[in-house]
């Protein structure tokens, strides 16, 4: 029950924040997506470290999560580097960013799978809440890119 509440709260917060800027063009949305993901990964690292310090996740579980987070972070870095080089969002640019975004999505799905393998329920729920924020960012930005033809 608490797990579901956490998911709903994070999802609502993230979607509300992302969708509040209706004047944003797609490049701005790309910038915001990069920043959202960077901040949420940072939060996820802190939660992971805290769970490890409390002994709620094993060394093997922390290692698996760390590798998963590293992949998401690297994919997000590629997206950010590419996006910040664009001065406007034409169709080829949009397609490039969508492809890079799909990599981020794939690695987040992998990270979610790693989280499901964590034995401790409390640890799994806390990480799931943070990862739900990441999922929500991805979904909102994907919708924005795919729906916002120039």
């Amino acid at each position, binding site marked *: 029950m608490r797990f579901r509440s956490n998911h709903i*709260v994070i999802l609502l917060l993230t979607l509300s924040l992302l969708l509040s800027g209706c004047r944003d063009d797609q*490049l701005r949305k790309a910038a915001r997506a990069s920043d959202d993901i*960077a901040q*949420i*990964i940072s939060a996820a690292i802190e939660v992971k470290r805290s769970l490890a310090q409390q002994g709620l996740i094993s060394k093997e579980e*922390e290692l698996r999560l760390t590798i998963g987070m590293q992949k998401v*972070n690297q994919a997000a870095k590629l997206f950010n580097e590419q996006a*910040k080089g664009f001065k406007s969002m034409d169709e080829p640019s949009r397609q490039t960013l969508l492809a890079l975004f799909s990599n981020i999505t794939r690695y987040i799905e992998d990270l979610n799978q790693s989280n499901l393998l964590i034995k401790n329920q409390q640890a799994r729920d*806390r990480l799931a809440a943070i990862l739900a924020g990441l999922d929500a960012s991805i979904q909102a930005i994907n919708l924005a890119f795919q729906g916002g033809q120039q």
Partner: protein
Amino acid sequence: MINLIIQLLPLVPNLIPVLIHVVAQIKSQGGMTDDEIFARASAQLDENEQKLLEDLKRLGAL
């Protein structure tokens, strides 16, 4: 929005400090240019990378 957050925070007490920080960062995008947002994201992603490398070393994977 502020009222909504205040109402929702008690539902996730374990994550309040982390959530407050994330929300504050995301909210602050409104007063920033695209370049500033990209630059902040870049700095944060670099910092994340360093932290994750530290963790991999601590865990004996490097």
